[in-house]
């Protein structure tokens, strides 16, 4: 049985890690979560990234955040990836499966998954 009290155990476990974590995010994953994004399936895409981040233990270097309308509603769900020393990558028409693949190959492996990027998705 899960209890609220477990949160204080999480607190104790995380206390030491958190100082390192602040401000050191080198990679940012941003998911468009306006009405158009939500209707197109952005919610499970966002949560797939959050889950992969939790499993990977990379929360110090990588952050996942939400934003409003990115302005290309017909390509939603849209995900932007910003990595240090790299131009912004825009992934379009994302799914949770694609999100997990992007996390594995791009976020962890440093290789952009070009099939899912905007230029390719436009064809």
């Amino acid at each position, binding site marked *: 049985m899960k209890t609220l009290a477990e*949160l204080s155990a999480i607190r104790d476990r995380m206390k030491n890690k958190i100082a390192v974590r602040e401000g050191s995010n080198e990679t940012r994953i941003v998911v468009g979560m306006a009405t158009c994004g*939500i209707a197109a399936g952005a919610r499970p895409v966002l949560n797939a990234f959050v889950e992969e981040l939790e499993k990977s233990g990379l929360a110090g270097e990588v952050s996942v955040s939400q934003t409003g309308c990115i302005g290309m509603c017909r390509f939603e769900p849209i995900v932007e990836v910003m990595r240090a020393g790299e131009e912004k990558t825009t992934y379009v028409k994302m799914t949770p499966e694609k999100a997990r693949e992007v996390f594995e190959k791009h976020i962890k492996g440093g290789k952009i998954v070009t099939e899912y990027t905007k230029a390719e998705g436009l064809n």
Partner: protein
Amino acid sequence: MKELSLNILDIAQNSVKARATCVKIEITEDADTLAFAITDNGCGMEKDFLANVTNPFTTTRKTRRVGLGLPFLKMEAEMTGGSFEITSKSEKEYEDHGTRVFASFNKNSIDFIPLGDIVDTICTLIHGSEDIDFEFSHKTEEKEITLSTAEMREMLGEDIPLSSPEVLAWVRDYLTELY
């Protein structure tokens, strides 16, 4: 929307945009009806604006002329034979400003959309707005499930953000187990 929990996410995001510090999400269900109310203490809306807000040509957004969230929800509720209500007090006129959106659905209608993954919606809200107090409750004939982020914050202390992946994983497991 494919799931009512997506409408709930969308409507609660309006509360976030309205700079609410407390957002209450209450779902009540019996054999024939599912209803939810989303109540916030955000900036509210003025009378004239409120009167037109369920008409799809109203929005304060700059990127697109048409607001869709509220008109969608109203239509979806009414299509099942349910009802939709919105009340709001603007911060320009009231100390106790805020907005309440209520929608009820007839579960037996062929147009009824299932609630879907409400746990995913709650995780998304906490992830996106860790400083807001979310009070969630889901009452059915058998049980009541509740979660308060203010209570969570008390257990976690000041230093651990609610949006940390570890905390969100806990929220997911905690709620999933209660369901």
